[in-house]
């Protein structure tokens, strides 16, 4: 059996598994007919979309099956940081002293999913929004800029997120 054919079958099965989990969460019932219908339609959708969901060159095992328990801890840390960031935002709305700048820097993460999650968590935390993500180059708009030096800015903005994401996805 050809290697590429095997990899294609694995991609189709993984995509339909993800879709099946989504179906069970949405319907919330474990009746036999519902499970059968969900399985059939998730297999049909997976046949059409597997090449977009998992790319052909994406071969790292960790990017498909990450550490689940670390993701749960990460979501709670993220929620705490979102509340902190919103209180800072309320203070800067009240006072009105802002100093916005554009900062460019690079990230060291390899996996695409990890990069997207890093960009989303940067968008959610204190006064920063990701404007553009091109391979490993990020353009970030910063509301209360303390420095424009790329190295210090990246260590201030990324904080602990990159370390956590490297543990989860490499």
């Amino acid at each position, binding site marked *: 059996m050809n290697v590429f054919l095997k990899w294609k079958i694995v991609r189709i099965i993984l995509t339909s598994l993800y879709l099946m989990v989504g179906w069970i*969460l*949405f319907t*919330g019932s474990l009746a036999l007919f519902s499970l059968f219908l969900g399985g059939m339609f998730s297999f049909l959708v997976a046949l059409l979309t597997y090449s977009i969901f998992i790319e052909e060159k994406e071969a790292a095992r960790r990017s498909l099956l990450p550490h689940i328990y670390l993701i749960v801890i990460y*979501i709670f840390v993220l*929620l705490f940081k*979102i*509340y902190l*960031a*919103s209180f800072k*935002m*309320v203070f800067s*709305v*009240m006072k*009105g002293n*802002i*100093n*916005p*700048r*554009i900062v460019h820097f690079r990230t060291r993460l390899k996996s695409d999913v990890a990069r997207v999650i890093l*960009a*989303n*968590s940067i*968008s*959610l935390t204190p*006064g920063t*929004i*990701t*404007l*553009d993500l091109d391979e490993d180059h990020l*353009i970030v*708009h910063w*509301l209360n800029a303390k420095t424009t030096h790329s190295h210090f800015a990246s260590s201030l903005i990324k904080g602990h997120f990159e370390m956590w994401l490297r543990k989860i996805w490499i």
Partner: protein
Amino acid sequence: MMWIVQFFMGLGIFFGIFGNIGLLRFPDIYTRLQASSKCSTTSLFSIFIACMLLEGFTPMTGRILLIALFFLVTGPVTSHIIGRHAWERGVIPWKRKKVKD
């Protein structure tokens, strides 16, 4: 129990009002995007947490948790879409003018 629910509801309304004030008060697109996206996400999360505490353990709680996770994913993506559209159109960000000492 009711006190915790009312506290979270009040937190949600507080963040919603300040997000709107920031949206009306800030000078350009990027800063308005900052205020609106962050405060709307936090106010939605506060209201959803309050609803989950009010409901207890029912199937509705799982459904509300699903909606909350959906907003956690799509909130930053939407702000990224709007910001990227403005950035590629060439909107120049607002800068504070230097005060001469």
